[in-house]
């Protein structure tokens, strides 16, 4: 993975004062996870199981480890080993994985469930770039081995560290003798839900009943059920497995604008399996570039004192660049979708901004456009967005300090319908000639979300770290009130999650 494991041993970005030679050892919370009955699942359907496991690793295991400041050390085919600085984070990560797996399994018959066993131990271990060694790892692996499917088992060492910090139920399973380890190890089972302490068994029965009913139901009313409930080609997803790529039919990848209910059950668009119907066999049309407005460089005061996230106000210098006159439209988006480069086609009006796009979706669009046009199109940085939105003003709104009708497409600001954003270019442009810089659709920027501007760059560059879980959205939407259309207003949202008011605009350096 990124960087050397040694780098995180002393915390982030800190270099050990004295360089050490020899084997690096450190105290770490080791999490070992493994799929129960993997060979049985592989026997049932090798390719599908493999695809599902890969998807779970990509969508759940890896992000959960990163979110909890851990490090994936290695994959073991059907499992993983991760290390964490903090026992609390390690156990939280285990709980998150198990809870999420409940959701993923809920729609499937029990025979297709993928269930992890997870063991967590605290130990002094030897770290190598792609592996980790020591008793501590062996104990974690043994804990994993004795854990029930769907459970997290922890050692006494971990328990002592987290018992007053992590509000969970802990069920002591006593001291266990573990193979090749001299001293017995005290083992605890984690019950993520404290109220479940006495109900654990009962709850498992509930799960069994629910899954039993689900099977009965699936057998009984399958035909009508699917036709009525999933008219848009989600049958493949529901009937087989969450990880199976949607079975394509003619309109499987389409949806009406903006009708979030018609969205596919895919949280993270994967470029490898783009659910878009093949384009009609027409000669490829040249890509129409969005209208771009070149802006001069300059220095401006970014931020405001109206919200804690907008502080401190700081000077930022922007280099000349161009930004799209409007948010990206449904028409522009669909060209990308038709080329199989964007995740879904939108039906309905095409003169409104595209919505329900995640940051990852937006990045796919700019990557496609840049490739097609041979121009370095990109998302604007947060600083560029605010500079463009202010249009040279320093007032609360770009038109002044008071709300005025007809200036922004926001809640209670116009008499537009709430169903979808206004047609592009319906309202007045700002002094830079840009439309909908405030209101309309929320707009993704390149920057990772930071809760305020402490430590923000002053050169207009995007403020990013590797793999950040949420990115900055700007502009407010037609469903937000007037506070959100201020050019300084900012918020963050999960990188891979779509929401019906989220769109974007594009930029290019001059």
């Amino acid at each position, binding site marked *: 993975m990124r960087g050397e494991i040694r780098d995180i041993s002393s915390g982030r970005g800190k270099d050990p004062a004295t360089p050490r030679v020899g084997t690096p050892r450190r105290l770490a919370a080791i999490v070992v996870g493994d799929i129960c009955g993997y060979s049985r699942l592989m026997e049932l359907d090798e390719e599908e199981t493999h695809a599902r496991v890969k998807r779970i690793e990509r969508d759940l295991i890896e992000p959960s480890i990163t979110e909890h400041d851990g490090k994936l050390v290695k994959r073991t085919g059907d499992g993983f080993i991760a290390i964490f600085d903090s026992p609390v984070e390690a156990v939280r990560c285990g709980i998150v994985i198990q809870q999420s797996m409940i*959701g*993923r399994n809920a729609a499937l018959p029990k025979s297709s469930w993928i269930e992890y066993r997870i063991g967590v131990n605290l130990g002094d271990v030897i770290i190598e770039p792609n592996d980790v060694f020591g008793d501590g790892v062996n104990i974690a692996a043994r804990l994993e081995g004795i854990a029930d499917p769907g459970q997290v088992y922890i050692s006494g060492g971990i328990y002592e560290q987290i018992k007053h910090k992590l509000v969970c139920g802990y069920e002591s399973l006593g001291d266990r003798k573990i193979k090749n380890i001299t001293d017995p190890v005290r083992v605890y089972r984690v019950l993520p*839900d404290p109220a479940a302490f006495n109900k654990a068994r009962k*709850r498992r029965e509930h799960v069994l009943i*629910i899954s039993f009913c689900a099977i009965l139901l699936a057998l009984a009313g399958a035909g009508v059920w699917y036709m009525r409930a999933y008219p848009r080609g989600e049958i493949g997803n529901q009937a087989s497995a969450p990880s199976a790529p949607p079975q394509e039919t003619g309109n499987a990848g389409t949806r009406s604008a903006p009708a979030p209910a018609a969205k596919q*059950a895919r*949280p993270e668009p994967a470029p490898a399996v783009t659910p878009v119907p093949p384009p009609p066999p027409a000669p490829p049309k040249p890509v129409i570039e969005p209208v771009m407005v070149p802006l001069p460089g300059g220095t401006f005061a970014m931020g405001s004192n109206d919200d804690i996230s907008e502080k401190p106000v700081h000077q930022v210098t922007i280099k000349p660049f161009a930004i799209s006159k409007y948010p990206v439209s449904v028409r522009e988006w669909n060209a990308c979708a038709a080329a199989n480069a964007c995740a879904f086609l939108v039906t309905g009006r095409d003169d409104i901004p595209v919505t329900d796009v995640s940051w990852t979706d937006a990045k796919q669009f700019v990557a496609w456009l840049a490739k097609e046009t041979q121009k370095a199109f990109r998302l604007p940085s947060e600083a560029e967005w605010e500079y463009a939105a202010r249009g040279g003003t320093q007032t609360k709104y770009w038109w002044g300090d008071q709300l005025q009708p007809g200036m922004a497409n926001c809640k209670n600001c116009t008499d537009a319908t709430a169903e979808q954003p206004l047609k592009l270019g319906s309202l007045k442009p700002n002094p830079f000639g840009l439309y909908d810089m405030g209101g309309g659709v929320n707009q993704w920027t390149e920057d990772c979300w930071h809760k305020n501007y402490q430590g923000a760059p002053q050169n207009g560059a995007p403020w990013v770290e590797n793999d950040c879980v949420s990115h900055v959205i700007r502009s407010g939407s037609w469903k937000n009130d007037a506070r959100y259309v201020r050019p300084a207003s900012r918020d963050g949202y*999960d990188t891979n999650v779509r*929401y*019906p008011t989220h769109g974007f605009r594009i930029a290019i350096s001059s």
Partner: protein
Amino acid sequence: MRITGLIVLSAMLSTAPLAVHAQGKSAPKDAVLYFVWPQDKAVIKGGFWCRFGLRNMGVTHAGDNFQNSGHHHLLIDVNDPLDPKEPIPQDKSHLHFGAGQTEARIELPPGKHTLQLVLGDGAHYPFNPPIVSNKITVTIK
């Protein structure tokens, strides 16, 4: 007891799909959404980890449409009633946890605040009937 549960559940499940994708997916009757932490009337110094509890349903990503699963939304100082026909709003008072998070670091200005959890389906709509937690009050010192 178990038989009754089974009948109720299968009846519920068999009617459920008809309502799917009209807004408001149905959810298990015994689903419970609650705060693991903080407790109602807690007095807290500074920022805190808010932990979300969900019984008899699973947590999944936004975009996933598996039965009996959803993702968390935390409503801070929201007094407007929830509109079951609309996606759960996205703003500074309606925090979304569409990546399947079951906890969040929350920082609020000093004073009294209300917190409430709402479970959303794959497209951010509330379930029908809505799966919501008790509205709790916390005081930030």
